[in-house]
């Protein structure tokens, strides 16, 4: 168990010390909420009851208040999937997997450690960025929006669902390259 927790920590440090992690963090933590804020401002300008009839530029009516902001989080999905893919593929660049397997020779433990480390990283990042995006959307909506910190039960429910969706995407991509039988 001690060896396995060391392997998980090893994988966590590897992920968080990589440049791609910080690029993805910047994209989803800073850019996504910023885009959400711009969108929220335009919603506030139109009014939350805007429809294609009142505003021809709209394809459909704005969603109910509890669901506003969820459209912006789609921006972060692609970087997260790319992140999982890059993390998985990076093991095969410059013989990194060989170093990994020399440090921890059990292929199963390395595989398990990678899955858990990716799950932890993507869960944390997804929760933070999705919450930040929804909160900033409601900041942008001004008085018409929900309380940016507390939101609503439905909004929180969808934050967790969206985070779960991303959590399952990125590790899947990351694991594509690193199977227990791989040896580097």
């Amino acid at each position, binding site marked *: 168990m001690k060896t396995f927790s060391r392997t998980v920590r090893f994988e966590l*440090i590897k992920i968080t010390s990589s440049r791609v992690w910080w690029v993805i963090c910047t994209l989803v933590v800073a850019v996504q909420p910023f885009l959400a804020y711009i969108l929220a401002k335009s919603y506030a300008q139109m009014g939350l009851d805007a429809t294609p009839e009142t505003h021809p530029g709209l394809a459909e009516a704005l969603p109910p208040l509890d669901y506003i902001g969820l459209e912006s989080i789609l921006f972060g999905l692609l970087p997260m999937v790319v992140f999982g893919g890059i993390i998985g593929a990076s093991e095969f*660049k*410059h013989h990194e997997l060989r170093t990994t397997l020399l440090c921890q*020779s059990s292929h199963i433990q390395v595989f398990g450690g990678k899955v858990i480390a990716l799950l932890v990283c993507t869960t944390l990042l997804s929760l933070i960025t999705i919450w930040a995006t929804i909160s900033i959307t409601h900041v942008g909506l001004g008085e018409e929006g929900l309380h940016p910190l507390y939101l609503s039960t439905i909004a929180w429910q969808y934050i967790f669902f969206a985070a779960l969706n991303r959590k399952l995407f990125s590790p899947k991509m990351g694991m594509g390259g690193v199977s227990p039988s791989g*040896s580097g």
Partner: protein
Amino acid sequence: MTNQPKNIVISHVHKRHGNKEILKDVSFEAKQGRITAFLGPNGAGKSSTLRILLGLDRSTGTATFGGRKYVTFDTPLKVVGAAFDGIGGNLSRKVKTHLKIIAQSNGIPNSRVAEVLKIVGLPDKVNARLGTLSLGEGQRLGLAAALLGNPQYLVLDEPTNGLDPTGIRWFRKFIRQQADLGKTVLLSSHLLSEVEAVADDVVIIDHGKIIATGELHQVMKNLESLEDVFFSLTEEGEAIDENFL
């Protein structure tokens, strides 16, 4: 073949890739306190043997460190230090971070990072990114990683590749010191003159088969250099001779 404590023992190792037999009954021993050079032309099976020894590839037969397989060690870096070609890490990482990650994986204190960088002559590169290191510096970094756990066994694949003359001289001295400390050193190389200057024992492999093994002076017999021995034993030597006729 006896399994002496602190010896590396490779016994009856066979390896196939499809129909091709990569290694044919490879057996030899690297003894404690001695430098064993593992020689052979490109594609002879040197790296494959070392990969099997380090649990990176599967095979039949046994390959052990003091009677134990690599995969049985909980913290392998404290027992075995291995260096292969290539950086073996993310090029955007700093040297310090790269070594700290490796150290952490085996419960080695971070203070050891500065020590090994000093040993291999890279203390100034502590904050350099891996991608900015030269070939020789990359080799030294590989040695630093191998030394992190102060291991009993050193397994080095082509360690002098990319080293300049100063680096090669440094390496000879370094590796001799390690052997004198009682460590078991197994190094593969195709640079025969380099090996001749430093090895105590020699194992020669060709086409996946061990063709000579023993102490350096015994293997050399009456021949002038290790290069002569090598060419007298391998088919490449015969081919070269024929081309000159």
